[in-house]
């Protein structure tokens, strides 16, 4: 875990919804793993005040760069989208735990801005696992085709059917044969309702499901107790420290 000033290398629009930011990442800062995140801050202002968490979408060891995928939603991402290569960013990371799979099969499911860490996980696991990448979008125009790599071809779902399969990612999984979930782990990142649906789906088909949870964070390092979720054993867990990756069975879905 490190607190570093890094430099923007690229700030690319891949679709009207998705942008990707690449920045210098010195090896000494620690190797970021799929599922881990960083806490980003724009220098020079106190508004936005809090750092914002973004999950790594890639790490290029050779060129010493790392990336995340983002969507412009509010104050930080709005300002971020105007920033140019060469400008500095404050980054704290890598933070949190990571995706992993002990099974032969892996189904990596990304919805919305959950795309980044899922791409990274798919990229890392595809050589060693029987991997299916499933990504869901509202409609065709938001799809960031240029973020995909030939080594991990995606199944694409759109709500309106304008590209790929019509329907959401859960409906897509339901359409797969039951055998596909044998000796398989589902890895998922996306909106809360999607994760909740995947939790009950995986429960039904009897496979492990790891979800990346999202909560408002102040510190990102486990100190403020701001980002907790309820666990089925009655305790609370910090998304930034015990997570962000949880077994879907240990999360209380509300």
């Amino acid at each position, binding site marked *: 875990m490190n607190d570093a000033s890094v430099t923007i290398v690229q700030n690319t629009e891949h679709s009207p919804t998705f942008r990707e930011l690449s920045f210098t990442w010195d090896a000494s800062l620690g190797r970021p793993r799929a599922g881990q995140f960083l806490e980003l801050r724009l220098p020079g202002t106190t508004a936005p*005040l809090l750092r914002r968490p973004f999950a790594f979408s890639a790490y290029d060891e050779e060129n010493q760069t790392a990336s995340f995928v983002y969507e412009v939603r509010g104050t930080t991402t709005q300002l971020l989208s105007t920033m140019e290569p060469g400008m500095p960013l404050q980054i*704290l990371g890598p933070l949190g735990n990571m995706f992993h799979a002990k099974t032969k099969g892996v189904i990596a499911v990304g919805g919305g801005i959950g795309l980044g860490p899922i791409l990274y996980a798919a990229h890392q696991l595809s050589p060693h696992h029987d991997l299916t990448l499933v990504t869901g979008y509202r409609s065709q125009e938001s799809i960031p085709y240029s973020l995909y790599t030939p080594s991990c071809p995606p199944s694409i779902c759109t709500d309106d059917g304008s590209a790929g399969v019509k329907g959401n990612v859960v409906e897509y999984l339901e359409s797969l044969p039951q055998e596909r979930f044998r000796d398989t782990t589902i890895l998922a990142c996306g909106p809360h309702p999607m994760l909740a649906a995947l939790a009950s789906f995986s429960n039904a088909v009897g496979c492990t499901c790891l979800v990346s949870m999202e*909560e408002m964070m102040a510190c990102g*390092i486990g*100190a403020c*107790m701001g980002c*907790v979720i309820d666990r089925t054993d009655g305790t*609370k867990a910090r998304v930034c420290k015990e997570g962000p990756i949880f077994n879907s069975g240990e999360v209380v879905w509300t």
Partner: protein
Amino acid sequence: MDLRVRIGNKHLQTPVGVASGTFGYGEEYEPFLDLDSLGAIYTKAISLLPRQGNPTPRIVETPSGMLNAIGLANVGADAFITEKIPYLARLSSCAVIPNISGKTEQEYLDLVEKLDPYDTLWGYEINLSCPNVKKGALAFGTDPAQVESITRKLRDLTEKPLIIKLSPNVTDIACIAQAAEAGGADAVSLINTLVGMVIDTRAKKPFLANKTGGLSGPAVRPIGVAMTYKTARSVDIPVIGMGGITCADDAIQYLLAGASAIQVGTWNFIEPATAGEIATGIQAYMKEHALSTIADFHNCID
């Protein structure tokens, strides 16, 4: 040059502490700074029994500030003793100051009685002012008579430094400080958070599950400095100032306003190394302005 600060019968090695609730029990910050370089760590609030705290969302950002409604989530006194004190005992020069939070007067007294045997604990910060606990400390913190009375009872229980932490949500904070002084407090610390609310207009409901939360961060700094200035002119015991401190210059504002020590709170979340750097900045300032003790800061502004 002497950075030490006398509080009651003890000294802090530097005026720079880290504020309760923003630094856990220290562990999380070890990668970023040498904890033993700090003057004091004020722990997350400790209650008699463990508390889960409020439902999420517990946090929301505001312009140059944040609201929190953690709800005093903490491990409870027993786990603090068995799990946290051994870790904190490894610190040699940094004072460890538990932040004491009760739901009733009796709970405050029980807590201090229970913790007093532990030599590792330097003193107490008595949180009479958390705005997030229902039926909680708010009543104590805003009524001078009650503040004086509870302070006196706590005073009888311990010889260690007793710091009363004050709420800014009052008409006259100096008068509450005087009540704490009259009750035998060794210092007062201020400010705790201000009651605030953010409404999610899309969902048509308060953003925090607890509806209101406590406002902290740079946004409140001018309020903290003003209250420190007023309070330092009203009591003879040391004042420990906080609210929105982000750098040595902010800390120096508090010292010039009359604070004898300061605490870094919300900014620990933003730049976790900051608290470790402020003492150096204060030293540089003292050198430049030919000040030799912290008390010298108090003669600059009338």
